C-alpha cells in the first residue's frame, strides 16, 4: 500500500515537472523579461538626464539612486557595456 502511494507521488511529481517545462517555464521567462523591461523603463524615466535627455526632477530622483544602483549595474551589463557609461552614475 505504501509503495503504491510513493509511486503515485513520484509520478505526479514527474507529471508536474513536464507540465512546468512545457507551459510554465516559457511563461516564467516571458514575465521575467517584462519585469526587467519595466525596470529599465523606470531607470530611463527617472534618470533620463544620464542619457542626455532633460529631466526636471533629476535632483529629486537622486535620492532613489542608492536603491537602484544594482539594477543600474545589471542594466549596463545587459546593454553590452562592461563598464558604467561615462558621464552617468558609477556602479563599477
Amino acid at each position, binding site marked *: 500500500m505504501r509503495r503504491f502511494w510513493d509511486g503515485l507521488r513520484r509520478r505526479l511529481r514527474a507529471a508536474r515537472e513536464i507540465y512546468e517545462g512545457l507551459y510554465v517555464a516559457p511563461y516564467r521567462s516571458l514575465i521575467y523579461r517584462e519585469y526587467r523591461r519595466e525596470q529599465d523603463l523606470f531607470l530611463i524615466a527617472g534618470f533620463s538626464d544620464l542619457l542626455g535627455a532633460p529631466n526636471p*526632477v533629476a535632483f529629486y530622483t537622486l535620492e532613489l539612486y542608492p536603491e537602484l544602483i544594482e539594477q543600474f549595474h545589471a542594466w549596463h551589463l545587459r546593454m553590452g557595456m562592461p563598464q558604467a557609461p561615462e558621464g552617468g552614475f558609477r556602479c563599477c
Partner: protein
Amino acid sequence: MAPADGNASGPGGGIPLLLSALPAGTRPVADVLLRRPLLFFGGKGGVGKTTLAAAVAIRSAGSGQRTLLVSTDPAHSVGDALGLRLGNAASSVLPGLWALEIDPAEEADRYIAGVKARLAEVTPPRLAAEVERQIDIARVSPGAEEAALFDRFTRLMDEAGAGYDRVVFDTAPLGHTLRLLALPEQLQLWIRGLIGRRKQVNVLGRMWRNVAGAAAGDTRTDDPVLTALEERRERFERARAALTDAARAAFVFVVTPERLAIFETERAARTLERYGIPVGAVLVNRVLPAGATGPFAERRRAEESPHLDEIRRRFAALALLGVPDLARDVQGVDDLRRLGSELFAAMPR
C-alpha cells in the same frame, strides 16, 4: 487734493489709505493679513516687500498667533530688516515670532549628504570614492539649488497649522517667485508619471515572484523607491492645494506708484490667476501722505496721481491699501512693530 477717496487716514497722512471702495465680495484687508495661515508677500524689487511682510508678521505674533517669517529670496534681507542675524533654521525673534532665511546651498548640501549616507550602506567600499564623485557632480548641476529651495518651501508650507499657526513668506522679486509657485503643478506631472511606471514595475515583480517562487530571491514586498516618490508627490499636492485655497493662502502684492512696478505687478497678477493662486490685497507703498504740502509735495502729487488712478483701474477687483511714504526710516524690530500698529490701527474693517 486728497490722494484717495475713502481715505481712512487722519490729518498728517497717518497710515493707511484705502485707495478705493472695497470691491464687492472682498474680505477686509486686515482679515486677510492677520488670519490666512499662509501669506506670500511679493512685488518688484525694492518696493518694500520685506518691511511690510516683517511688520505684518510682528503684528500677527502680537495677536497671539505663533508666526514664522520666511525669506525665500536668495538675496535675503529679512535679517537686515529685523536687525538680526538669521539662518536656515528658525530663530526666535519675539515671543510668538520666529524667522528664517532659506539657504539653498545648505539645503542642497543636506540632501546630498543624506543620499551619500544611504549610498555608503549599499555600495561596495571599492566604489565608494567614484560614486561620491558622481554625486558631487549632481550637487553642482544647474537646478540643484532651486530644487532644494523648492523642497524646503513645500515643507515650510506644511508648518502652517502644524508647528506654527501661520507662515508669512517674504518672497524674491516676482520672476523668481512665480516660478517657485508654478513648480508644484509642473513637477507633479513628472512625478506622477514616475509613480505610474514604478507601480508597473512592482506589478510585474509580484507576478515574477509568484511564478518563480524561491528562485526570485528578492522577497521584499515594500518598495522604498515608491514610498519616496509618493511622499514627495503628496507634499507637492498639499502645497498646490494650499496655494490655491483662498481660505488658507493669500498672495499680497506690494507695489509703488511707479510705472514699471505697476506693469510688472499686473503681469504677475495675471499669471497667479492662471495658476489659481488667490491674491488677497495690493499694498501701495510710499504714497505721498495727504498732509504733505508745499511746492515739492504738490509736484510729486501731480506725478503720482495718474499712477494711483492706473493702480485703481488695473487692480479694480482687489482690495487696495495705500501705505504713506514715511519721513522716518523703518529699521529693526521696534520700528517694524510701530509700523505694524499704525498700519492696522487705521485699517478699514
